[in-house]
């Protein structure tokens, strides 16, 4: 096997996931894997250290159809299955959670709402260019004081005369905000929460970048500031997006991708630790031969295999139109938790070397701390599952 920086040829497959995939799904994984090995792994540590997003990869990923690939071809999609999409997210996040986050936002949080709730003119105007990566989108729901409780948002939109709307408010923790050409902004209106498309450069709209992150450093995170932003209803208002439910359905799409993506980060950490433990000699033996390390590997590979099968079953349900939001929550909650745990265990196996950027482990571990909290915190997902099981909503 090659070293950590060169990428590993095979994904970890203890329970025979490969045999449950179609040829098409396997090919999508191979294509994404080859891309990540050649284009992402050699450069990602430098970007994370420098806190820069590898922007040149946007067009490359768009050219390969990595954004919104489950959408119909007429809108620039690729008609892929949800499982193939999940495998794509797996490979991208094996590269870096920031890269997968970019694809999640572009596809699930921007293209999906435009596709599901936009007018035909909005779809044709935005979707093909978003798919190719010619333009970038971001999704503004979370606010400084409203995270887990988005329904309390303070951002307001008021209807003006002449088919216009005026927006005021602040959004926070917005991936891609500063580099986005279009923002999907959710705001309170007299008729409930509605979604708006706000273009970069609209007077009163700013998207300053947030600094000082120890996590997702190879990803752009921003605030969105809207001060008397006036937009045209036909171009801006998503006609079918009515109520918080519409915004939450976008999150369900993104959370599905995360349930797959974090497996990639976990796999990278697991394989790195395994490779390291085979070659690291202490007391004249590879440390992989010691019982305490083997107990860690057994636990890591068990969790990884279970997470893979969980994601696959969720994907099959989704392709059959049967996946529920609570099932997506369960998978996001479980897989993100286990990925973070695997990353931490991998770090201990690498010892002091585990903190260096020569290995991907610490970067993944720090990234996963964000993933644990974003797109619904671990705790909120537990409550969504709890509500599905007991019938009682504990977070209201």
């Amino acid at each position, binding site marked *: 096997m090659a070293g950590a920086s060169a990428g590993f*040829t095979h994904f970890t497959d203890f329970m025979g996931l490969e045999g449950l995939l179609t*040829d098409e799904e396997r090919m*999508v994984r191979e*294509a994404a894997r080859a*891309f990540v090995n050649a284009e992402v792994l050699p450069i990602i540590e430098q970007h994370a250290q420098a806190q820069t997003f590898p922007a040149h990869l946007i067009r490359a990923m768009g050219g390969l159809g990595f954004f919104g690939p489950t959408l119909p071809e007429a809108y620039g999609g*690729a008609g*892929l299955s949800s499982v193939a999409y999940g495998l794509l997210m797996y490979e991208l996040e094996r590269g870096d959670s920031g890269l997968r986050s970019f694809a999640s936002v572009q596809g699930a949080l921007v293209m999906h709402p435009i596709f599901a709730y936009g007018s035909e003119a909005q779809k044709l105007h935005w979707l093909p260019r978003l798919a190719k990566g010619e333009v970038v989108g971001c999704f503004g729901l979370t606010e400084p004081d409203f995270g887990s409780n988005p329904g309390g948002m303070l951002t307001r939109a008021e209807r003006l005369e002449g088919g216009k709307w005026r927006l005021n408010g602040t959004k926070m923790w917005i991936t891609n905000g500063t580099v986005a050409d279009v923002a999907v902004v959710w705001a309170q209106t007299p008729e409930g929460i509605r979604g708006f498309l706000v273009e970069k450069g609209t007077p009163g709209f700013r998207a300053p970048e947030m600094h000082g992150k120890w996590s997702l450093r190879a990803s752009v995170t921003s605030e969105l500031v809207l001060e008397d932003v006036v937009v045209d209803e036909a171009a801006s208002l998503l006609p079918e997006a009515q109520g918080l439910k519409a915004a939450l359905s976008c999150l369900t799409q993104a959370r599905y991708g995360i349930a797959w993506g974090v497996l990639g980060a976990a796999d990278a950490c697991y394989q790195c630790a395994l490779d390291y433990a085979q070659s690291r000699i202490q007391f004249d033996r590879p440390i992989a031969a010691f019982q305490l390390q083997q107990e860690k590997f057994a636990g890591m590979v068990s969790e990884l295999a279970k997470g893979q099968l969980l994601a696959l079953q969720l994907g099959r349900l989704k392709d059959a139109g049967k996946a529920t939001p609570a099932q997506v929550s369960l998978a996001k909650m479980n897989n993100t938790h286990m990925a973070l745990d695997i990353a931490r265990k991998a770090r201990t196996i690498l010892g002091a070397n585990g903190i260096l950027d020569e290995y991907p482990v610490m970067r993944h571990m720090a990234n996963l701390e964000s993933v644990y909290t974003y797109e619904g915190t671990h705790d909120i997902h537990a409550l969504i599952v709890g509500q599905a099981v007991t019938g009682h909503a504990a977070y209201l």
Partner: protein
Amino acid sequence: MKIVVCVKQVPDTTEVRIDPATGTLIRDGVPSIINPDDRAALETALVLKDTTGATVAVLSMGPPQAEAVLREALAMGADEAILVSDRRFGGSDTWATSLTLASALRRLQADLVLCGRQAIDGDTAQVGPQVAEHLGLPLVSYVGSLRPEGDRHLIVKRMFEDGHHVLRVQMPCLLTILKDMNTPRYMSAPGIFEAFQRPITTWTLDDLDVDPSQIGLKGSPTRVKKSYTKGTKSAGKVYEVDPREGARIIVENLREKFII
């Protein structure tokens, strides 16, 4: 321009290991890939498609599972895929293979046939040139770059270890392409989706005009006498000396072995 690219499915030899006990190849779990030189030939064809509007067909001879490399070629952008597959072709050496492929190529009527220089499993570099001979086509091997000149000609660079020739060749012709000529594109997600919507044409012996006595194992004049793994060489010696002393030691060693 109609281009046909001949591709072979091969085991990824970077993944093949030797069983230390038996000395044979461990093929279990070794992925099958498009032969690297053939992949460069495919990329060459796809660049011509992008720049001149050429159509690109891929042709492979092999067992049914070779369909996988044809799907990959379609996902990269090829327009059409043909698999020549029949149990009666089994055991073909380069002679029988090139006769079979030549027969398929006669049906396809290409302006340009591109092959990889050689396959990483057999390493003979014979099939491309033999196909050209069977078809009576001009052949340029070891091609490192090419560009079209008008509708009927190509300017190609034929590589040698210590230089290159620039040749003008008239189509139809056959070129064998070097892996280093380009960086093949990735398969795209829409390309993969489309690749599985398209049919792959399969031709058997009955679809080709080829003498049955010249194909398969019995039509193959090559006989493998022995197959073995080379013994490992002894470890080299390391001298930590200045350059003058180093040169003296090298000359002395070469003299001892009667090399100089």
